[in-house]
């Protein structure tokens, strides 16, 4: 299958001119290169002269500074709201102190709580919940005052008044109307009230959390997931990383729900108002390709340092997929279900809350899964802006080359990721099951009771047995030093050293450096034209126009050389990944069992926070270019292999059967039937690989690179918002160029093959 056959899929009427355009652009690029070779190329075509480079960063900064105060007032306001919830979870998970109260926080709590009740039950219950919380808030404010300290007797009396009211009200509604949500929501608010009043509820004992996770896991996916759920927390506690993990989790449990709520609201808005959708889409695709450093600096500037900034960056980072999944899910609701809702006489709110959202359950839950995973990945990365937790510790350990401890933290992060992913995915496929008539309350809510018993049981045990509460400094089983010894010992073995040393030498001197130098040698003008012609050839007219504009912008920022180095790293890593990944995938796709194994492995590997991939790279190759390439390589290998296997396995069986009956040999079948049909799917994998590579190359700045990532990381230390933004746009636009081109090709191809659904 040749790529050139795309032309048949492209607009036929303009096919001829497209070909001409392609030759023209490509020819011009070649001419420019030749001109440079014989030395007649004018310098301004080689590199844009310094004098002509507009200072975007300064302009941006100037514009920003004019608005700075008003913007930060707003953002600080939000970050304080966020901080309130962060403090509460931090208190519960690792015993941090909560020491401020603002009535507005009570207001948000009230809104979200009564909104949840309205969604789950009815208006009456929501109103009752709202009034209860509002009254308690007014009392708090009245007695404590804004920002006051806690702890007087009168407050306690008021709190108990609130408790009794809430309990009576919630209980009554649960008893009379069978509506349980007010009880649950008021329970949560009550926990807030307790903590605000200075009761020390946290840190929760690790055994309680582990046991509850085990019950949830068992409920969602049998004993395997039960073991995974409980085991992850047991491991974390025993290895002595409980507090670190809880620091990470405390941000996650605030950021993920926040991203979920904001995402779903924006998603609904985008679905309801097509115009809003039109504006939102390009922003979302830029957001999804922006390097994470670009999220971090604004977060620091706008939202304070530490957990709040980390949480804010995490939320923003996780919102786009939730928006996309929400609109997708709502659009996919079968028209008959919609009509059934209309004919049942649903009002607009009823249509949304009782028909659309429940019917889109699967997509929404997939969105939840993505939100959780992105949040985890980002929370780990917020180590770069000083967010304490597993990521920060891993960063510190890798910095001091303590491989054993890094390895242990890596395992913890991976376990957390896999657990969260598996559990949330199990939730997606979990279908409601009916109970026999007359099943008792106990039977109907068995898992709920089991979870409560497990939680409370261990809470009580931990009051008596100290180890069940927390594992002390000297009690854990960390073998950091020993593992460090083993790894370093292994790396010291002559053969290993010889192999890694040779790979390093070969790659650096024979492949990477020549390739990089060649790319840097190409004149800017020719480079842009080459990229444009590539886009034109593969994707067609529209992607080519975008490619040209995007790369011209990159060239005009003055960060051309670093951009080219970034691009070179991405391209070489992806090519290496292709060379390794394709044979593996093609081989694996031959048999059912191997396909399954590989897909399972890829599924698992894909959940790892990207940061983890640096670990083996550093272990094997130390700190240099090869480690960077290697970490990108294994990171991009995952989508490449995965989509190739899926593409090959997804070839309709009647087509392979037809090939078999036509007497095709295995090779002929592969080349003439399977690969051509799998190519669109593979292209999606290839595209994702490139996106992953752009993401990873920035993180790899940590190892020490000379590309945009390095500059980006440097901006984090200061307040260079403009520069940070410009660098981020460079990465984003280069990534988008590939994204547009390859996806456009895949789309055309799928249509041409009649594969699009």
């Amino acid at each position: 299958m040749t790529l050139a056959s795309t032309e048949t899929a492209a607009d036929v009427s303009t096919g001829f001119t497209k070909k001409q355009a392609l030759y023209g652009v490509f020819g011009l690029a070649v001419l420019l290169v030749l001109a440079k070779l014989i030395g007649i190329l004018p310098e301004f075509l080689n590199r844009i002269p310094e004098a002509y480079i507009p200072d975007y960063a300064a302009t941006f900064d100037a514009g920003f500074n004019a608005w700075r105060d008003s913007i930060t007032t707003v953002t600080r306001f939000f970050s304080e709201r966020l901080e309130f919830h962060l403090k509460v979870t931090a208190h519960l998970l690792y015993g941090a102190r909560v020491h401020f109260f603002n009535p507005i926080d009570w207001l948000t709590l009230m809104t979200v709580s009564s909104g949840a009740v309205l969604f789950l039950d009815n208006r009456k219950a929501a109103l009752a919940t709202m009034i209860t919380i509002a009254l308690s808030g007014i009392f708090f404010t009245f007695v404590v005052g804004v920002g006051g300290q806690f702890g007087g007797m009168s407050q306690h009396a008021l709190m108990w008044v609130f408790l009794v009211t809430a309990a009576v009200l919630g209980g009554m509604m649960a008893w009379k109307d069978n509506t349980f949500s007010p009880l649950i929501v008021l329970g949560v608010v009550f926990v807030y009230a307790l903590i605000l009043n200075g009761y020390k509820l946290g840190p929760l004992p690790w055994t309680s959390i582990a046991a509850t996770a085990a019950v949830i896991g068992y409920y969602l996916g049998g004993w395997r997931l039960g073991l995974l759920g409980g085991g992850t927390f047991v491991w974390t506690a025993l290895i002595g990383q409980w507090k670190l993990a809880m620091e990470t989790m405390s941000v996650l449990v605030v950021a993920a729900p926040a991203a979920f709520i904001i995402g779903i609201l924006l998603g609904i808005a985008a679905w309801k108002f097509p115009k809003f959708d039109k504006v939102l889409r390009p922003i979302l695709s830029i957001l999804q390709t922006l390097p994470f450093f670009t999220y971090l600096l604004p977060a620091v500037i706008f939202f304070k340092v530490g957990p709040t900034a980390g949480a804010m960056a995490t939320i923003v980072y996780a919102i786009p997929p939730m928006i996309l999944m929400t609109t997708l899910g709502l659009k996919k609701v079968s028209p008959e279900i919609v009509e059934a809702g209309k004919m049942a006489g649903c009002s607009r709110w009823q249509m949304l809350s009782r028909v659309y959202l429940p019917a889109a359950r699967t997509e929404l839950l997939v969105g939840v899964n993505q939100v959780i995973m992105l949040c985890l990945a980002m929370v780990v990365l917020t180590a770069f802006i000083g967010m304490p937790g597993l990521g920060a510790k891993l960063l510190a350990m890798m910095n001091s080359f303590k491989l054993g401890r890094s390895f242990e933290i890596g395992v913890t992060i991976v376990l957390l990721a896999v657990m969260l992913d598996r559990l949330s995915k199990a939730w997606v496929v979990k279908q409601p099951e009916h109970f026999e008539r007359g099943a008792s309350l106990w039977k109907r809510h068995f898992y709920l009771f089991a979870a409560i018993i497990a939680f409370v049981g261990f809470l009580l045990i931990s009051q008596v047995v100290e180890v069940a509460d927390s594992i002390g400094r000297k009690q854990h089983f960390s073998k950091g030093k020993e593992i460090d010894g083993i790894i370093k010992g292994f790396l010291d073995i002559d053969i290993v050293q010889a192999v890694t040393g040779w790979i390093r030498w070969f790659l650096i001197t024979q492949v990477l450096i020549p390739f990089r130098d060649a790319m840097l040698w190409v004149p800017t003008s020719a480079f842009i034209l080459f990229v444009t012609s590539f886009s034109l050839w593969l994707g067609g007219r529209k992607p080519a126009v975008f490619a040209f504009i995007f790369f011209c912008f990159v060239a005009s920022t003055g960060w051309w050389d670093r951009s080219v180095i970034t691009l070179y790293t991405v391209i070489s890593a992806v090519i290496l990944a292709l060379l390794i990944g394709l044979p593996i995938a093609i081989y694996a796709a031959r048999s059912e069992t191997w396909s399954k194994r590989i897909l399972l492995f890829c599924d698992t590997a894909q959940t790892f926070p990207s940061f983890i991939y640096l670990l083996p790279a550093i272990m094997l190759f130390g700190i240099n270019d090869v480690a960077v390439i290697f970490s990108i390589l294994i990171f991009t290998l995952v989508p490449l292999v995965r989509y190739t296997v899926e593409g090959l396995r997804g070839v309709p069986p009647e087509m392979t059967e037809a090939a078999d009956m036509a007497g095709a040999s295995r090779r002929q079948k592969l080349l003439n039937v399977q690969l051509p049909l799998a190519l669109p799917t593979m292209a999606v994998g290839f595209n994702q690989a490139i996106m992953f590579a752009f993401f990873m190359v920035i993180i790899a700045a940590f190892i020490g690179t000379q590309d945009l990532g390095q500059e980006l990381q440097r901006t984090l230390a200061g307040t260079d918002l403009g520069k940070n933004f410009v660098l981020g746009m460079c990465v984003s636009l280069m990534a988008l160029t590939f994204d547009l081109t390859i996806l456009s090709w895949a789309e055309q191809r799928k249509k041409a093959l009649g594969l699009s659904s």
Partner: protein
Amino acid sequence: MTPSDTSGGVFNKASTPMTNIKPVISCKNVWKLFGSSPEKYLAKLPNAHSYDDIRADGYIAGVKDVSVDVHKGEMLVIMGLSGSGKSTLLRCMSRLHDITGGVIEVDGQDIMALPEHELIDLRRNKMGMVFQSFGLLPHRTVLENVAFPLEMRGQGKHDRRERALEVVKLVGLEGREDYFPRELSGGQQQRVGIARSLAIEPDIWFLDEPFSALDPLIRREMQDEFLRLQDLLGKTIIFVTHDFDEALRLADRIAIMKDGAVEQCDTPDKIVLNPATEYVRKFTQEIDTARVVHARTLVKPMPPKAPTGKALRGSATIHELARTIVNDTRKQFPVEDDDGKLIGILDRQEALDILLGSE
């Protein structure tokens, strides 16, 4: 298009004939066009434009100048092949689609003029609908699905549970109240759909190919079930199907649609005996006329010298009477209705022609 038979004809099921009562649903010159700006296009549309002409202009005529009345307690079956506009017409009547031109009145009220809340009220209290692929809410149990319309109009939990249990029993799903839709077979799921549509005790019952997604055997069973329910409830029904046999079996009147327009609208007997167009004839060709036509359709007024002897039942089909018609050599038979009152005479030769084909 053929003007609809507005004289109303509920002779098939031998219920009380409707005379001069306002129709429950009345469609007058209804148009539904799909396209970029259908209203403007319709305003300028020349009279003679055919379906294909309209399509050439970039519009699809979902419903093309249809006038049809449905009377109280009558079952109108809209029959047509896929793309004929039958489901679209049904959705216009329930205002799931907004029509482009014409008037649809329900109980004398122009439904296009209804504001949103009144439309919602109308649906909450008067209309029920059954869908081809059931349209059940996957996250709700059978009982919760059936109670859904009641919940939407704000009935209390206990109240709606009671009513839902009643309807679930009516459709024969007792004991499965707590099942989820995906745990049920197709036939059972459609029973849930039927139960849901009946929960609010609607006056008007819309059924959009309710049995098309089912296996032939189940389909037959569900049709019987449906006839039983209709006998019990006597609703005004608009039933859409692409299956001519089904239409003949269930309908009081059939409206046969093609390209958005009604080709013929009449009782099954009359459609089989006198297909109005070539298109309708194609459907009737394969049909055993004797199984469709009832004796009462063929009756002639009593002559002064009435034939004597045993009378035939007017509500029986010619096929059911075949033995008598063949064996009894009287030239003419008296025909009586279900109450034993003589309603006319049946010509033996005519009946034989239908039974055996003419000549």
